[in-house]
């Protein structure tokens, strides 16, 4: 688990984090973040040294509703 993944989890945001240098890609099978979660994710990513944080939409291989 990456440090950012861990901090996000502590903040109640469960996701995997794919790291590409200063870009953090959040990958989650669940619903997208709320407004407050989004701002918190940006804050935590910056604290971990990332200049950019994004959320993968509809990741391939993610569980479909009803799976």
């Amino acid at each position, binding site marked *: 688990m990456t440090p950012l993944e861990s901090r996000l989890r502590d903040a109640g945001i469960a996701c995997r984090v794919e790291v*590409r*240098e*200063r*870009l953090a*890609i*959040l990958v989650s099978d669940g*619903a*997208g*973040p709320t*407004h407050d979660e*989004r701002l918190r*994710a*940006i804050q935590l*990513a*910056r604290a971990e040294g990332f*200049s*950019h*944080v*994004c*959320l*993968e*939409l*509809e*990741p*391939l291989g993610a569980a479909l509703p009803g799976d």
Partner: protein
Amino acid sequence: MNPVAIDASTRHKEAALATWLRERGSVLVGYSGGVDSTYLAVVAREVLGRDNVLAVLGRSASVPAEQSQNAIVVAERHDVPLRIVGTGEVEDPRYAANPVNRCYFCKSVLWTELTPIARDHGIAVVVDGTNADDVSEYRPGAKAAREQGVESPLADVGLTKAEIRALSRERDLATWSQPSAPCLASRIPYGTAVTVERLGQVERAEAALRALGIEGDLRVRHHGEMARVELEAALIDSWLEPANAQRLTQAVRSAGYKRVALDLRGFRSGSLNVLEGVVAA
């Protein structure tokens, strides 16, 4: 978008621009159809007359076709003489390698094409749409302009982007509220080769997002098989909602990207410069 009020300082700068143009007598405008070069070309047309202005539009794979078409329409509407030239920057290996100073090679190609046109037409000076805000940004293309004697009257008289938008609105220029539109190569991280295929992929993805009704600043950043979409911050929450996220994903995948991500902070001008550490976050 609400334009800033036009105050006495802005009026003074616009008057200074007219004086600047009169002193040169004739200008060739490096024209993109964007906010700055359109305003400059139209003011030059007003101040100098039709015979003393030539706008030249560079066409290449790094400029969206729709943008070029809009530029042609705007020039026609405002009776600005226009010439279109093909620029082959993508064929230049120094540009295609996509170094941090890629813009230098692009602009070198552009101004190398335009300077002889000015000479052939007996035009005194080649000008670009660099404004006063641009001067403080990382712009290696400006070096190429300086080397070829290209001048920047908007920056010289201190006109900022906000002032140019306000003055454009007053002139009823359709460009006044147009988002900034840097070339498509600005979506490709430094060190990743700029190819016609990748530029086309970015162009198709952005066009597909516009077709969904997304307005304002929008960029599709190319990260290999993944597209990272930057929207205006105020739009992000809405496009994270499941139904919208699905539409956005499908639109971008239709351009050939396997993975689609939405930047949680939203649009940032020069975002890849920040990501690459070229400028501070």
